[in-house]
């Protein structure tokens, strides 16, 4: 019987222990305060580069920066307009010299105050060549950049001469040229302030980044998962409405969607094209599809004589007419894309420079006219158009095949167009960089900030950083220069639109569609929205 007695005692002890924990209270175990049960899980991808603000140029890293940092300006999640965040005022008299005053009282989550020095040090770090920041070119307008980040050779300075700290909360910026809309670009993550621990203990900061936003990072397993929790010490107005976000890395977005369906995940953004057909029946109202500042185009290799001779613009225009955008965006993308009628994005709004219908007939499906134009232009160079794209992400194979089928049907030739997949994004960029394209290639552009300048200059200006096709047109360049110098915003926008007209007349790139952001969420969540960068507005999501 002794065994039984022991067993009885053990059972009693266990029962007492259980009761104690049950009565002990339902407090959360998450650090950083907040309601522990209101944490949502969201899909994520592994950021390619370390999570430094001036080193992150893709959406996945951008999600984290959006939660952990706040800069001088912030783009309103609904309208995309740049609004003051940490900036109290940004004054200028000549659109070239700016005086920035930041609001006092802002702190980093480790207690440090956010000062003018936090900004200037961060920007100097970002611009300096030795730090290898991929977004260094964002500081390219600031005086002194060419010394800090020369095109070749080693740098002769470590700080930008155009940045000066004039007080605890003030600093001045001197640009190398007039740029009237410069303050509106300052919402971009690269311009975030950084705490001193970033510089004093860089390795530790990289393991667990510290910022001044509504969330702090409580744990980060690189390549796998990041747990962010609400920071109660956040003084901004856009406090987090939930207890935290757990970002889970998925190799394949289809698996993320499957997880959402099985109740294993709360939020998936960027629904893969193959699931779009059943997403409404799966999720009903828990599926959102909103415009984002992303446009997909087909760029051309102008370094190849075949695409640069007389008549080529007829061929390009003809190809543009051969693409049935409506059918493709309806069938493949289930209306998460809208056929493009200009080269910017509806997110800009008409005041921002968006012109619906600028492209005119050239972007309307017209197979007979397409065939005629292509013939008039001298036919397709080489007899076959190969559309190059990277096959590893983004559902590109589906739409490139659809575009090719559309062209083939319009021109009445099965082999007129064929897709040319490249295995990896890195190799795709490689081939573009080495000018190896022989035909049109995918050129998607996501805006860095919601200005018409951002849709035109980096893509079509001579030798611009994203002008992959090397298109060059003096009239376009002149108009853009004038627009940048123009201090009156509406006049500047008109000049940009004139420049866009030049792009249209030459069909420098074929605009395909505006890409929406798409997301699906579980029934635990409410108030889910995407900002114009197609990133979920995590801090406004409520968890029930």
């Amino acid at each position, binding site marked *: 019987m002794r065994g039984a007695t022991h067993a009885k005692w053990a059972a009693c002890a266990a029962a007492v222990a259980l009761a104690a924990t049950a009565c002990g209270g339902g407090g959360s175990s998450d650090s950083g305060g907040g309601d522990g049960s209101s944490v949502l899980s969201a899909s994520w991808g592994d950021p390619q580069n370390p999570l430094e603000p001036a080193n992150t140029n893709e959406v996945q890293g951008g999600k984290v920066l959006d939660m952990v940092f706040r800069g001088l300006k912030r783009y309103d999640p609904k309208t995309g307009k740049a609004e003051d965040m940490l900036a109290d005022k940004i004054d200028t008299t000549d659109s070239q010299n700016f005086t920035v005053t930041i609001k006092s009282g802002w702190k980093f989550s480790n207690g440090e105050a956010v000062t003018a020095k936090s900004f200037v040090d961060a920007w100097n770090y970002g611009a300096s060549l030795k730090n290898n920041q991929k977004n260094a070119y964002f500081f390219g307008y600031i005086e002194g950049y060419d010394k800090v980040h020369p095109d070749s050779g080693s740098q002769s300075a470590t700080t930008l001469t155009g940045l000066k700290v004039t007080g605890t909360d003030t600093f001045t910026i001197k640009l190398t040229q007039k740029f009237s809309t410069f303050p509106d670009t300052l919402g971009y993550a690269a311009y975030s302030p950084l705490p001193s621990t970033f510089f004093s203990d860089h390795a530790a900061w990289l393991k667990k980044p510290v910022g001044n936003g509504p969330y702090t990072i409580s744990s980060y397993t690189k390549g796998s998962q990041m747990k962010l929790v609400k920071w109660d010490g956040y003084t901004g107005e856009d406090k987090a409405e939930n207890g935290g976000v757990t970002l889970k890395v998925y190799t394949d977005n289809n698996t993320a969607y499957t997880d959402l369906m099985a109740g294993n995940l709360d939020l998936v953004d960027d629904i893969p094209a193959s699931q779009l*057909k*059943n997403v409404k029946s799966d999720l009903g109202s828990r599926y959102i599809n909103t415009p984002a500042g992303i446009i997909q185009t087909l760029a051309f290799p102008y370094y190849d004589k075949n695409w640069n001779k007389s008549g080529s613009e007829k061929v390009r225009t003809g190809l543009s007419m051969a693409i*049935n955008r409506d059918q493709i965006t309806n*069938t493949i993308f289930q209306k998460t894309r809208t056929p493009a009628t200009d080269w910017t994005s509806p997110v800009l709004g008409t005041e921002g420079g968006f012109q619906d219908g600028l492209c005119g007939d050239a972007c309307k499906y017209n197979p007979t006219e397409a065939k005629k134009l292509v013939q008039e232009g001298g036919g397709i160079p080489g007899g076959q158009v190969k559309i190059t794209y990277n096959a590893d992400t983004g559902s590109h194979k589906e739409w490139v*095949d659809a575009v090719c089928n*559309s062209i083939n*049907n319009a021109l009445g030739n*099965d082999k007129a167009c064929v*897709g040319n997949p490249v*295995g990896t994004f890195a190799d795709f960029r490689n081939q573009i960089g080495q000018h190896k394209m022989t035909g049109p290639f995918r050129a998607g552009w996501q805006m860095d900030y919601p200005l018409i300048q951002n849709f035109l200059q980096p893509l079509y200006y001579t030798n611009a950083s994203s002008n992959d096709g090397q298109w060059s047109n003096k009239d376009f360049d002149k108009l853009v220069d004038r627009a940048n110098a123009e201090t009156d915003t509406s006049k500047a926008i008109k000049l940009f639109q004139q420049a866009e007209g030049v792009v249209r007349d030459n069909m420098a790139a074929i605009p395909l569609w505006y890409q929406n952001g798409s997301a699906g969420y579980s029934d635990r969540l409410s108030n889910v929205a995407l900002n114009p960068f197609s990133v979920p507005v995590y801090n406004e999501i409520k968890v029930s």
Partner: protein
Amino acid sequence: MPEQPFEPERAIAGTGMGGPMDLATSEAETLEKTPGGPEGTGPSGKPHSLWSDAWRDLRRNPVFIISALVILFLVVISLWPSLIASGNPLKCDLAKAQEGSQPGHPFGYDGQGCDVYTRTVYGTRTSVTVGVLATLGVAIFGSVLGGLAGFFGGVWDSILSRLTDIFFAIPVVLGGLVLLSVVTSNTVWPVIGFMVLLGWPQISRIARGSVITAKQNDYVQAARALGASNSRLLLRHITPNAVAPVIVVATIALGTYISLEATLSYLGVGLKPPTVSWGIDISAASQYIRNAPHMLLWPAGALAITVLAFIMLGDAVRDALDPKLR
């Protein structure tokens, strides 16, 4: 003293290709373990060679007959797909995307609005071609290397063994991802080349083993004593008797190469358009399983049946050639 044919190293057939060869290797071993290979072709009388016995058994084996017929059918429609499919695999109508089977289109439409039936029929040519050419390349390349190493032994043998180990150590899928991701040509040759590059070690091991076994037979010693040159020995005496295990393994390998093409397409590094292949269709359809399973079902079914036919053929041939299992 010649090397023991029963070396454990031989029994360890690496699994670069995921296994089929290991099965076939050990099964092929049973073929070699039997003492006394085929009798020599006598000068007169009914020749009762291994091959004629095997053929007699095969003729009566229903498994062999069925699989041979299936393969014959596949070869015929590879060469003349228009016999059973009147449409055009490249002509697609997006308005019909993902629709199910309809009159005139028994397998329905795929994600681009292409006819699944036509694409499946035309895909036969590509998939069977890739399988056959890859197997031929592997068989020839592997047998020559392995056979020569087995025949001459010594340093050549050591070098070859280390070389096969090196290639075995590289996982196949990984190698495919790495090598094929930079290929720009859209023909079948890069994929076939890759399969030959990573597949030859399997066959060379088998060939080496069986040549070593055959080398030890009395008739070979006798021919050598009579002054036959190396090349005569190899061609007339050793090869016919050593080739059986290679055939067995090769037919099974063929099936796996066809399957591997599909996996490579799934990873994004397989054949490129406008090639029509089952692998391309299967990997494209795999995301649509929930909505439009027919897109996956038919090409995957065709692939499974083809692979099945080849493996069953290999099985039947092995059974016929293996006296131990009578």
